[in-house]
């Protein structure tokens, strides 16, 4: 804890505060060095990870946001956002989106991303208590309540769809229960149970900076392309908060690296771990971009090349090399996978959507064409034939579902569907720990497991839990009842409740228009 001198010394007349000193007086000068308890007692969690901080005052506040300015900006932004939400709801705006099945993307978002905002809200509060330095504490405090804003504005944005469409209604409990949501949940649980510095690299740096354009932003772009005005407006409204969070993430890694050379190898391992951990969560985004959108934005491959290979590997990592940080381990596997990821994941979800809170369907002709263009090396050769087979089965009245439960990776918890770079037939890796056998989806997850086997063996793996009878009972209907699924939440899109309603509601509107037009002709 340090204090910055904010005034003159000696007998000369005091100087008026500059903007910078004034900001400092309103923030970090509030801090003091405790003397009735020790610093170790006051901040008991900032030593056990091995990170060494010599001077907390070196943390740079890039924003100089004071509390009154924060309230003013945020209140103004919310006023605008909620007026859009209200107008959209009042005008039955949900009928103007591209198609009901677009909302599958938003069901994934509300179930899989909104709870992450909430988790970030709680744990940035932990940093706002537990960091020794007032600079990062205040930055974390702002982020903590921003994250609450995001969780709430997302819920309020999607609340209107919940009134008319399936799959949204039990989002909060689903996060704790539904099998595929254990992928984002275990990611955040992993971060929240780590120490305060690892959390900062996991969420502040990896999630909010390194991968944010692949994790969060694709949903907002999807909304904009598919006529989802409220979500798009939310996305724009969150933009200035997100840019603060991104700056915090970058400041965080630089701060840790500059404080002590011994921090470099620790941070490198966290970058390696959290890149791969985060990248595996993007599997859900990849399939959303390529398969769930009636009007696609860009392919996963294109997004990955632009936002990760160009901006991060080409832009960020050369800067970090100055500190001795190398591009993340296993990145070459991720690059190779960009031609495969979305296809294998959507195929898996297609097979298991009987147990998900969204629906899936075989791509139509136009969609096949788009996918073939986007993936010239793999789509027609490997993946289209599989869809053709599923379509045939569907036409014969035998819609394909996998008759059983998938094997999940012990670390990322994604079903083990990923082909390996050097051997496309290999989709399974294994490890042993204290006489037990563990299944892993990739070299990346195997490496993460073997770094901390004592942690990852604790994982609440949904499939194991189902098989152990801990999820409502031994049969699939028992499990779906435990998920509180309703008719229309899951399975095939074509002929689903949402699909039928969509047609019915649009017929209603068009009939009215037709009658008016006819009446006009007669006159």
């Amino acid at each position, binding site marked *: 804890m340090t204090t910055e001198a*904010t*005034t003159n010394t000696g007998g000369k007349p*005091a100087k*008026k*505060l500059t903007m910078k*000193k004034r900001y400092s007086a*309103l923030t970090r*000068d*509030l*801090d*003091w060095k405790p003397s*009735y*308890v020790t610093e170790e007692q*006051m901040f008991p*969690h900032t030593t056990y990870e091995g990170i060494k901080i010599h001077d907390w005052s070196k943390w740079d506040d890039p924003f100089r946001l004071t*509390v*009154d300015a924060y*309230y003013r900006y*945020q*209140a103004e932004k*919310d*006023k605008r956002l909620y007026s859009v939400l209200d107008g959209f709801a009042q005008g*039955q705006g949900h009928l103007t989106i591209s198609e009901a099945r677009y909302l599958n993307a938003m069901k994934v978002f509300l179930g899989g991303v909104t709870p992450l905002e*909430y*988790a970030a809200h709680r744990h940035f*509060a*932990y940093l*706002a*208590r*537990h960091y020794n330095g007032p600079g990062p504490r*205040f930055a974390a*405090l702002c982020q*903590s*309540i921003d994250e*609450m804003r995001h969780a*709430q504005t997302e*819920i309020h944005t999607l609340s209107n769809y*919940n*009134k008319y*469409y*399936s799959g949204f209604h*039990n*989002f*909060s*409990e689903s*996060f*704790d229960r539904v099998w595929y949501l254990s992928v984002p949940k*275990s990611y955040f*649980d*992993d971060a*929240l*149970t*780590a*120490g305060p510095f690892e959390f900062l690299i996991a969420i502040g740096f990896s999630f909010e900076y390194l991968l944010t354009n692949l994790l969060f932003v694709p949903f907002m772009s999807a909304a904009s392309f598919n006529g989802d005005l409220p979500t798009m407006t939310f996305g724009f409204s969150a933009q200035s908060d997100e840019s603060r969070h991104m700056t915090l993430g970058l400041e965080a890694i630089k701060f840790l690296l500059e404080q002590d050379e011994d921090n470099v190898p620790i941070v490198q391992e966290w970058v390696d771990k959290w890149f791969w951990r985060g990248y595996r969560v993007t599997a859900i985004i990849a399939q959303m971009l390529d398969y769930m959108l009636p009007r696609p934005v860009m392919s996963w491959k294109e997004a990955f090349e632009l936002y990760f290979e160009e901006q991060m590997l080409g832009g960020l990592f050369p800067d970090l090399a100055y500190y001795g940080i190398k591009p993340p381990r296993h990145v070459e596997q991720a690059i190779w996978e960009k031609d495969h990821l979305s296809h294998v994941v959507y195929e898996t979800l297609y097979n298991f959507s009987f147990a998900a809170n969204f629906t899936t369907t075989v791509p139509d002709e136009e969609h096949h064409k788009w996918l073939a263009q986007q993936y010239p090396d793999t789509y027609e050769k490997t993946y289209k034939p599989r869809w053709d087979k599923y379509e045939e089965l569907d036409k014969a009245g035998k819609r394909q579902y996998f008759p059983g439960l998938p094997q999940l990776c012990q670390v990322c918890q994604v079903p083990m569907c990923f082909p390996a770079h050097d051997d496309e037939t290999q989709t399974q890796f294994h490890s042993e720990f204290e006489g037990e056998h563990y299944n892993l989806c990739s070299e990346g997850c195997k490496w993460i497991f073997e770094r901390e086997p004592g942690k*990852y063996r*604790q*994982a609440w793996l949904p499939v194991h839990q189902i098989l152990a009878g801990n999820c409502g009972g031994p049969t699939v209907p028992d499990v779906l009842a435990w998920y*509180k699924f309703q008719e229309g939440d899951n399975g095939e899109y074509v002929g689903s409740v949402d699909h039928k309603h969509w047609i019915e509601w649009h017929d*209603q*509107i068009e009939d009215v228009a037709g009658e008016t037009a006819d009446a006009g002709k007669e006159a």
Partner: protein
Amino acid sequence: MQYELKTQVIEPTRHTFDHIAARYGDRPATRYQEGTIGLQPKENFHYRPSYAPEREMYDVNYSAYKLADPEGFVDPRGYYYTPYVTNRSEMHEGFGASLEYVTKRELFGRTPDAWKTVMTEVLIPTRHYESGAQMLFSGACRFCYGSALAQCCAYESFDRVGNAQLISRIGIALGDQTATVLREGKRAWMEAEHMQPLRKLIEELLIEEDWADSVTGIDYADRLLSALLHKHLEEVAINNGAGAYSLLIQHLDGWYAEHRKWLDALYKAWTSDETHGASNIELFSASANKWLPQAEAAVRDIAARADELLGADAGCVAAVEAAALETREALSKLGLTVEEAR
């Protein structure tokens, strides 16, 4: 007479989310409810926290105080993010207008010297106390159980750094846009005898293991400080030609009255809980008997310094003693067994 706008009506399939309907019925829910209730995960956590390996990530056992239905507690103010920031934006704007008026009319220049010293040595040091309160409530936000309560703690923590900034701005204005007054205030916080018991109190509260003990503990000091700084000194200031103090402090007094609402609701929930009421009352009584005497001694020392500066007829110590008595009565009404002042 009103005009009739024809609109297309599509009947909704449901009115709200399952967990809201389960608690409040399937009818249109408020934004507070949908944005608050049930957001905290409850089960199937994956890993144990490295900083508390014996606990879950969210665990009722981070405190000995318990509620049979943790989501049954709600913020009586109904604050979710938007009304919260909207209300506080207005509060800070109101404060800014008062401060501008004080500055423009040079009211500090017309304030008696004794009062300037009171502000420098008594009020300004509490910016550090408020900053400690931010940390305290941030810790409570992370480790308390239930999303409605965590949300109250989150906004409280932000309120407290906001208060610290309001008080700092008074100090900057009093120092004629320099840091002189803040520096003297900080010296008082670190070294002056009359501020040490309060600093000791907040430092010790920050290392309390149980977040609920920290929250109840700081409240005793808050009650007495409010009685001294927001109520009593404000009254004396008006009679003493220190109108600037009154104009500025009213904004903190308004905040204090409002913040009591959620705390009092929490106390009521704790003490009247069907399952845990008796044990909560026991814990709460122990907290009161441990921290209230320390808070009283700490704030009395500060009041004594104010009396020293303003003259004994300023009656600050007596005001704090009266407030301590009132606090004991209020706590007794909740069912607590609170020992008499020593």
